[in-house]
């Protein structure tokens, strides 16, 4: 059995006519893996995490976390689990240390064990020097780090992070992503939700793409990209003769299709590094001046677009 096992999970709010937030969702996470749920807002990612955290009861299906059933033994699930919510679920008028100590106590820690663990987590989130400052004086990124730290106090074996980088600066995002990788290297299994494909691509061993409560694709980044074709898109702007340019470039080796789109030439190519120089050579030879070029390697955005007909951020 996998460390996190989800079988045909279903959640409908206010049945029988209410919204179906999670629809027949199945996946598994191996111990020590980083698994991402990628999808736009409203895809059902947060509802899935809420069900797996025992905060919501599913209307169908079953799931286990660290071998414990979310419906049969929620206490065991909670013991194994740390959850970082999307919101800053903290107390701004308490210091960083007081916040962590409070959440530690709520996870059953006491006395010396609590003090030691709070010290460790403060060091882990790099806030030891600001531990006596109230959260209201912290930057958004620092608050996010405390938000993550509060879920680590009881040394969970599996960590659920629900869009933990929303609304923070690039530097703080980098620190959080690096911290998550460190946690994973230390043995923590991670379920990560995001609508940023770059984060899913960078962090995850495997990715599930969700839309309207359903899983529409699953695999490694490479597997997902391969599943919708491996071609890159090259977009070229020319000063004149767009139709003649398209006719010429169609016959260049490595180009599989060429079409006009918004007064530009849009070409699908197998290996952009090899094909783009050839396109320039041909243009020079034919007296066509290229005024702009853009190369888009296939990515998760391409996958989502191919599967749903919509951009991920729509």
């Amino acid at each position, binding site marked *: 059995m996998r460390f996190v096992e989800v079988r045909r999970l279903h959640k409908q709010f206010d049945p029988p006519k209410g919204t179906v937030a999670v629809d027949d969702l199945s996946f598994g996470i191996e111990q020590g893996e980083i698994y991402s749920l990628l999808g736009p807002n409203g895809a059902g990612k947060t509802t899935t995490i809420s069900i797996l*955290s*025992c*905060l919501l009861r599913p209307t169908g299906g079953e799931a286990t976390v660290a071998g414990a059933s979310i419906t049969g033994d929620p*206490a065991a699930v*909670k*013991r194994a*689990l740390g*959850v970082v*919510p*999307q*919101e*800053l*679920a*903290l*107390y701004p*008028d*308490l210091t960083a240390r*007081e916040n962590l100590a*409070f*959440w530690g*106590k*709520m*996870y*059953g820690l*006491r006395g010396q064990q609590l003090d030691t663990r709070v010290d460790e987590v403060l060091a882990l989130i790099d806030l030891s020097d600001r531990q006596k400052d109230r959260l209201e004086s912290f930057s958004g990124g620092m608050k996010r780090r405390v938000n993550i730290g*509060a879920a680590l106090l009881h040394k969970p074996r599996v960590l659920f992070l629900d869009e933990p980088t929303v609304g923070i600066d690039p530097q703080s995002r980098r620190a959080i992503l690096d911290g998550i990788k460190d946690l994973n290297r230390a043995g923590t299994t991670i379920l990560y939700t995001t609508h940023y494909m770059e984060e899913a691509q960078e962090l995850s061993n495997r990715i599930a793409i969700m839309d309207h409560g359903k899983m529409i694709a699953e695999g490694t980044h490479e597997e997902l990209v391969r599943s919708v074709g491996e071609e890159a898109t090259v977009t070229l702007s020319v000063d004149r003769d767009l139709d003649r340019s398209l006719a010429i470039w169609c016959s260049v080796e490595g180009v599989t299709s060429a079409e006009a789109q918004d007064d530009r030439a849009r070409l699908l190519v197998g290996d952009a590094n090899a094909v783009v120089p050839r396109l320039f050579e041909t243009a020079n030879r034919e007296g066509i001046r290229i005024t702009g070029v853009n190369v888009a390697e296939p990515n998760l955005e391409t996958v989502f677009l191919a599967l749903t007909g919509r951009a991920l951020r729509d």
Partner: protein
Amino acid sequence: MRYIWTLAAKDLLQTRRDRMAALFTFILPTAFTVFFGLLMGGLSSGSERIPLAVADGDGGVAARKLVSLLESSPLVELKMIDAAAVDKAVDDEQVAAGLLIPAGFSASLDSDVGARLTVVRVLGSTGSQSVEEAVRAAADRLASERLAAAVAVRTVEDSPRAAQVGEIVSGLLERPALTIAAKESGSKAGQIPRGFDQSSPGMLVNWVMFSLLTVATGLVMERKTGALRRLLGTHASRSQVIAGKALAMLILTMLQQVLLIGLGQFAFGVDYLSDPPALLMTMVTLSALASCLGLLIATVFRSEQAVIATTVIASMVLSALGGAWFPLEVTGPGFSRIAHLVPTSWLLDALRGIVLKGWGVPEVLLPLGVVWAFSLAFFALAVWRFRFE
């Protein structure tokens, strides 16, 4: 229990750091207690007797007896001053009236001429009217005693016990054949709470009810930030989270009550400690009422603005209707009946019973039982409708 306590301790720490909470919990209640107390008669509430200046220009046996009779009157409080100062004391309203006992009063009383007393009072003042009545009653008593003694002496003039007649008459008058017993009935005992006896319990209830704002807004904020939901992901159960919130409110309002009752007892002379067990029961009941109502408001309303508006309106209506701002005794029976539809009036019945009538546990059981019924109904509704997100 440890999770409940951890939650409560966190809430109390947050409250301690909130300057507005300190303002609403301790500073404003004290200021309002003083303001309303002075407005309704100030420190006179400690003694309901009306001040009477007495100038004894005689100093004889009968004059001393008259003074003694007035001292034992439940209506007046004597201030012995010089005859020359009586008019000024009355004019300056230091006393409600003045009594001049002229020189030769004792001698005149036993003579055929008869004695004369002068009462100096403000015309039209009901207080000084009452004082005059009290003086008349004492003077009549003294005159009756003297008359009875004179009759007896003349009747048994040759008897060896004639010398003891005065003493015998006095003794008999101490045990009169006819007395009138005044019985207090409910909270309308004829004694309308005044001064701090009114303002201290009234403002106590008013501001403890207002403190439910703290718990209600705190809960709404926790729900808004997702902290309430996050708590459910910890090892604490739903009921422990709710109980932790209620415990914090209970402790906060109990501390508030200890301070305000201490202030009333020791600074304003309000007799809260006549029956400590009854007082403790009343305090716990008031705290429970505020906690349960706070939970209910935070459950029903989701936005901070709605909670603040509802709490302010609820605490004002409950305080005003319950008699926290003015004694229900001055209202008509119709208003009093309506007032007893809200729990605060029952609570104030118990508090004022303790303060004014020395009520003990048996007497406060009924009003406090009614308040507990309200509190449990609020609590059940709150738990039933409670949402963590």
